[in-house]
Each structure stands twice: as structure tokens, then as C-alpha cells.
């Protein structure tokens, strides 16, 4: 070793009094310590009466009044971030401590999560109710690795999530051991395929500007997760002066609107169509989007199919034809797709047999119009964009932002004659809607008294109880419930349904429900989650978070004791290869032992009942659980259900 290398590092130069004296050996520690360990810069004062009364020695500065983290917290405050969900981690201990103790006004509230996947999925659910991101803090390495699946879900679902990652870039200051394996050259690299933007600031000013930019990017359609790396040195280094630092003002973009010529052409096609159909997927980002779609549909008197990516259209509106989507699509001469995830899939039937085949289910002469912000940011690697669709008029634009102009253009083209045609169409569609709803009610009655409980009965019982309240179904509208809530319930407010995971990554449901319920809490809404058993087992710890923060949420288990989608896939394979058709549960069931979710919830501090497998027992249990939730606490009912 050269003399130079043996010298202790005093990078910060924070020595009080005279110049640093160089290496001073700490008695004891140095003798017993490893040879390679650098000596501390300054010896602490010996604990002796002589030393106490002697003239003060030069002292190493061990404390400071403020740090970069305090400034970072001020930056976060300027971003309108209500909460920060986090599983605590040392690489962001500076910001964590500043959130706890830096007295400069209210900061984002720290919500302790038991897994980073829960943190991000909570932010995902929250953003879909509240329309703005929540912050998530995680280690740049092990935390982000845990979080990755939830980040992918948010990306696929076009939802803003604001991730702050701790990291220690400067290798020369890293603590040996853990801090090294928790450090990375390029933290965001492992998820860069499925985030919208990231940055690794090297100064506090840089941090502040990138923090603003990250928020702006996350909130510009197509929205998505963003990452800001907060270097630990930047966080922890004392801040001597703020004179050179400013917290920039947040710039908010307006969402991209379809160009006026294309909007006019779309209006022409829609008005002259004999039977236009509107299909909406992630279209209504906000309540205004839903109102905008109702206005367009009513102006055109067009059939609407709600794909359910967002709450796009009131479920009992007479123009809502979702329950007979195939039939109306077969008749359509113009189809307007709004923020479609999979326009091809909606317009084709696909057979999953030994030879995969497909056919169009729409008219050969049908004209397709698309308004989709997804077209502005098609990724390379992950195949989220679905199969190429032959669209006649494609606007790479935000549907919600474009709807008012489109409705106006449609209105300008309508005259009395056309209006009469439209009125007839409305009456026919309203009649069909009524008939379908009657059929749905009849269908719900099949297997009404069966045990385990049918998904129709479960959905009907919950509906019976929540309909009197201001409710919000935060999770539970998917295929695993055979779409019963969509079919039976009356959804007419934007917050009553928030779509699905996006990436179909299991484990989204429970934490997204807790995050959405946290957002609903302020509005006094009764949040309802119909929770799949397999999904809850990914991260049941989020139940503790719900209990810890008194998040009112009614969770009703759809406990079919299986990864049931996979049961059906294995059945398909077994049939195809003519063997083991009675063995589809192989590796797919959650039995022996059966999971007692009431006990799991109880252990997390959540009110619970179950298992309930008799349908008549569901309603009274629901009443008790709703009382708990109305009093501001989470509750869980474990209902043992039919497969789908």
C-alpha cells in the first residue's frame, strides 16, 4: 500500500477547529479490527476525568443541522404527493428520516408496506381513483427487484407511479457488505423496458428538476411509472446553504388531442354510418372522460361496448350493449375504438385448439377508427401492443381529450332527417338493453342455492348490501367472476370501477384494492374488493397495512381454492393429448391444507369471518363486515366459491 492509499478518507472535510491531524488510531478497535479497515479520522475524546478537564481537542463533526434529504422532501412536497408507500430500506434512510423529522410543513405521509410489490400496486390502485400518482420508495436493487412485477402492471395499465430509489453510486464511500450488494451502476436499467422515464441525478439541483420532469412525464398520456434515483450521498450530505438551490415549479402538460382534420373525418364516418359502435377500454381517465363518452354516444345514439379497462360508460345506460358485444359488432359498419388495448382481439374470434385459428367477427366493409395514446409510445421488447389491426383512421391521441371536439363535430353534421334515424336506433338499443338485463337476472338465479357459493350469488349478495352506500368496487370486475358484477350491478360513477391489473401479473388485486381504498377513504366511500385466493397469497401482508392505517375496505374472498385459470389450461392440454383428463388440478390447487383466510386476516389485525360455504350465510356476514368498514376499519369475509 502506498502512503496515499493508507490515508483515511476524509472526503467531506468536516473537521471542526484546526486542520485534520491525519490518521489517529482508535485504541482497541484498531488492534482487534481487520487489517484492511481504514482508521477513523479522529479519535473520540478519551473517557477520562483528565480528558474531560483538559483543553478541548479538535473534534470530528458528527452532526449537522440539515441535509440534502430535507431539500428532497421539499421537492416532493411541491409535487402534490399525498403518500409514500415503502418497505423501509437503508439506501433511502436519509429521505425516510427527513420525512419523519424535518420540520418544515406536512410531507407525504409514510405508509409502511410489507413488500415492494405491495407498495407499487397500492400506488397503482390509488392513482386510478385519485387521478394522480403516489410516491413509492424502494432500494434501487432488492426493492426494485421485488417491485418489478407491479411496475409492469402499472405500465401495461398506463397508470402513473412515482418511484424513488435509493442507491449509492460512489464506490469509494460505500459501507462494506450490504451496501455494496445494494448498489448498482444503473438502477432503473432492469425495468427500463416498462417505465416511461428515469433519471439518476448527481446534484440536488439536478434532483429537483428531474423530480418535476418525472411527474410531468408520468402524467402525460399514455401515463406510466417513472423512476428517480436518489443517491445516498446526495441524501445524507449536510447541506450548508440553500442559496444555490430552488424547487422548480411543476409544469403540467395538456394531453394530446386528435388532429382536427382526423376528428372531422371521424365525425363524418360516424354520422353517416348505419350502425356505429363505440368500444372503450382505457378511455375514461377521469369522471369527465365518462361524461364525454356518454355525450358522444347520446349524440350519435350509438351502441357502446365497455371493455372495462376503466369505468367508461354507465352499465345500465340504454346504449350500453356490452352484454351483447359480439352481436352489435357483427352489425357495425363503423367501429370507434377508444384507447383499445387489443382492437384485433375485440374484432376477431380466436380458437385455442391444437391448431390456433382465428376469424374476423365484424363485417368485411366495417370501417375502423381508433383514438389511442398508446400509439405514441410503442415499446420494443414487451409485446403489450397486441396484434396489428387494420384501422382506417388512427389518431395517435388521448381519447378523453379528443371526445369533446369529436362530439362537437358530430353535432354540426346532424340534421333533422338524420336525427330521426338516430332516434329509432336509440329505441331499438334501449329495448335490447332491457331484454339483456332481464336475461342476466334470470341467469344469475342458476345454482343460486349451490354450495360452494356461485359467483353470481356472491355478486348479487354483495350488490344487495352495498347499493345503499356510496360504494366503489376497487377490484373484482374481472373474468374470474364471470363478469357478474358488471352484468348485475348498476355502475354509474367513474370511481365505481377502476379496471384490472394491466399486465395480468397475479398479486395485483389485494394491494391495489388497499391503495384504492386509501384514496376512497377521504371521500367517505365504501370500497369493495372481491379478492381471488391465489392473488392474495402473493402478498397477504398488505392486509396488515390496511389494518395499520385504518383503511376502510371490504374484502370478500372469491376463494375457489385454486389457480383456476391454470386448472382450465391443464384441462385443455390433457384433453388435447388424450390423457389424464381427471388430473387438471395437478399443481394448480390450493388445498390440503385449505387456506383459512379468516385466520390469515385475523393475524394481520383485520376483522374477519369464514370460511363461509353456505350461500345463506353470506348476507348476514356481509352486514356485520360492512358495519366494521363503515366504522373505518378493514374487514375480510372468506367465502368459498365455485370456480368461475
Amino acid at each position: 500500500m502506498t502512503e496515499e492509499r493508507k490515508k483515511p478518507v476524509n472526503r467531506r472535510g468536516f473537521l471542526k477547529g484546526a486542520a485534520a491531524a491525519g490518521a489517529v488510531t482508535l485504541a482497541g478497535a484498531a488492534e482487534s479490527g481487520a487489517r484492511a479497515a481504514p482508521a477513523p479520522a479522529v479519535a473520540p475524546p478519551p473517557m477520562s476525568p483528565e480528558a474531560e478537564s483538559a483543553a478541548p481537542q479538535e473534534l470530528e463533526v458528527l452532526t449537522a443541522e440539515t441535509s440534502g434529504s430535507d431539500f428532497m422532501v421539499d421537492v416532493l412536497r411541491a409535487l402534490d404527493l399525498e403518500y409514500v408507500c415503502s418497505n423501509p430500506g437503508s439506501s433511502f434512510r436519509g429521505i425516510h428520516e427527513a420525512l419523519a423529522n424535518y420540520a418544515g410543513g406536512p410531507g407525504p405521509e409514510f405508509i409502511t408496506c410489507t413488500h415492494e410489490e405491495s407498495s407499487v400496486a397500492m400506488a397503482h390502485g390509488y392513482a386510478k381513483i385519485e387521478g394522480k400518482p403516489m410516491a413509492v420508495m424502494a432500494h434501487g436493487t432488492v426493492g426494485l427487484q421485488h417491485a418489478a412485477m407491479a411496475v409492469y402492471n402499472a405500465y401495461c395499465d398506463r397508470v402513473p407511479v412515482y418511484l424513488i430509489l435509493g442507491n449509492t453510486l460512489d464506490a469509494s464511500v460505500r459501507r462494506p457488505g450490504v451496501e455494496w450488494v445494494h448498489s448498482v451502476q444503473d438502477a432503473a436499467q432492469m425495468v427500463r423496458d416498462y417505465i416511461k422515464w428515469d433519471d439518476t441525478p448527481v446534484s440536488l439541483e439536478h434532483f429537483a428538476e428531474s423530480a418535476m420532469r418525472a411527474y410531468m412525464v408520468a402524467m402525460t398520456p399514455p401515463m406510466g411509472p417513472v423512476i428517480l434515483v436518489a443517491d445516498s450521498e446526495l441524501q445524507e450530505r449536510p447541506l450548508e446553504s440553500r442559496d444555490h438551490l430552488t424547487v422548480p415549479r411543476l409544469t403540467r402538460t395538456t394531453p394530446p388531442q386528435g388532429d382536427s382534420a382526423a376528428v372531422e373525418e371521424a365525425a363524418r364516418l360516424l354520422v353517416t354510418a348505419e350502425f356505429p359502435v363505440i368500444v372503450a377500454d382505457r378511455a375514461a381517465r377521469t369522471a369527465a372522460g365518462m361524461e364525454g363518452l356518454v355525450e358522444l354516444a347520446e349524440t350519435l345514439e350509438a351502441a357502446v361496448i365497455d371493455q372495462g379497462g376503466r369505468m367508461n360508460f354507465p352499465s345500465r345506460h340504454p346504449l350500453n350493449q356490452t352484454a351483447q358485444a359480439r352481436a352489435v359488432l357483427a352489425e357495425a359498419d363503423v367501429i370507434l375504438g377508444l384507447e383499445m388495448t387489443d382492437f384485433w382481439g375485440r374484432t376477431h374470434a380466436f380458437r385455442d385448439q391444437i391448431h390456433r385459428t382465428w376469424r374476423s367477427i365484424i363485417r368485411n366493409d366495417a370501417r375502423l377508427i381508433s383514438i389511442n395514446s398508446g400509439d405514441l409510445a410503442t415499446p420494443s421488447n414487451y409485446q403489450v401492443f397486441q396484434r396489428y389491426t387494420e384501422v382506417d383512421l388512427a389518431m395517435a391521441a388521448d381519447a378523453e381529450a379528443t371526445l369533446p371536439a369529436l362530439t362537437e363535430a358530430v353535432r354540426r353534421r346532424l340534421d333533422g332527417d338524420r336525427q330521426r334515424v338516430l332516434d329509432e336506433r336509440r329505441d331499438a338499443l334501449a329495448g335490447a338493453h332491457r331484454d339483456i338485463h332481464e336475461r342476466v337476472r334470470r341467469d344469475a338465479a342458476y345454482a343460486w342455492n349451490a354450495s360452494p357459493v356461485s359467483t353470481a350469488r356472491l355478486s348479487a349478495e354483495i350488490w344487495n348490501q352495498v347499493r345503499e352506500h356510496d360504494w366503489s368496487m376497487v377490484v373484482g370486475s374481472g373474468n374470474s367472476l364471470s363478469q357478474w358484477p358488471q352484468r348485475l350491478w348498476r355502475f354509474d360513477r367513474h370511481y365505481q370501477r377502476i379496471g384490472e391489473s394491466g399486465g395480468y401479473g397475479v398479486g395485483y388485486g389485494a394491494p391495489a384494492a388497499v391503495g384504492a381504498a386509501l384514496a376512497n377513504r377521504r371521500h367517505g366511500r365504501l370500497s369493495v374488493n372481491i379478492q381471488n385466493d391465489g392473488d392474495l397469497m402473493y402478498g397477504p401482508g398488505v392486509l396488515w397495512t390496511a389494518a395499520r392505517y385504518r383503511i376502510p375496505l371490504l374484502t370478500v374472498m372469491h376463494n375457489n381454492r385454486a389457480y383456476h385459470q391454470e386448472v382450465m389450461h391443464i384441462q385443455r392440454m390433457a384433453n388435447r393429448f388424450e390423457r389424464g383428463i381427471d388430473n387438471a388440478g395437478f399443481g394448480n390447487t390450493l388445498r390440503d391444507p385449505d387456506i383459512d383466510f379468516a385466520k390469515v386476516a385475523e393475524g394481520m389485525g383485520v376483522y374477519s369471518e369464514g370460511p363461509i360455504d353456505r350461500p345463506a350465510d353470506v348476507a348476514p356476514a356481509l352486514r356485520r363486515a360492512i358495519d366494521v368498514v363503515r366504522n373505518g376499519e378493514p374487514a375480510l369475509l372468506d367465502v368459498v366459491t365455485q370456480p368461475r
Partner: protein
Amino acid sequence: MKGLLALPMSALVLGTVSPVQETAVGDREAGRLAYVETGCSACHGLEGQGAGNTGSRLAPDPIPFPAFSAYIRQPTGNMPPYTAAVLGPDALADMYAFLESIPDPPDADSILPAP
């Protein structure tokens, strides 16, 4: 691409198609077990009540037995085929007897809130 079937239909015809029985006299209880064990309930519900796109409603009042058994052997949609090699005619008849035994549901108005 619209209207395209990627492969000739002949490619879809696989396995043995057994002669279709005209009538069925099956054992209801054996049928219930077979219906669950061979996975029908996974897609059609434990009482054949149906499950949206996952599986259509089969009961009460199942479709006539010839159509029933023909569909199972050679489905034209997404349902996986059950050839005679894995599901014998007796089991089919039993299942049919089970589905036939399922009673009518209660009147929707008596159990569900007004629309």
C-alpha cells in the same frame, strides 16, 4: 386478414369420433362425480350454470343428448375436445342424467333486487 382461417378444417379433425348415441340412460350420481372429475365443472360451474365466456350454461334442460355428445367429442368453439379414448359413452350418459336432474332456479324477482 379479416375472415381468415389459417388452416384447413381437416387439420382440426383429430382423435376418434365415436358414433353418437341417440338416447341416454345414465346414473345421476356417477354423472355428478364424472362431471366434476373430468373438469366440466371447471368451465361450466358445479351445477352447469355456466360461467360467461368460460363455459356456456348446460343445465337445467340440457340440449338434446345427440347434440350434447356430439359437441363434447368435436367442439366447434374453444371448448377442449373429449374424445372417446378418454371419456367413454357411459360417463357421458351419466353426466347427461346428472344435468337433466338439476332443478329449475328460483324466480329472479324473488331473490334479486328490482332491476
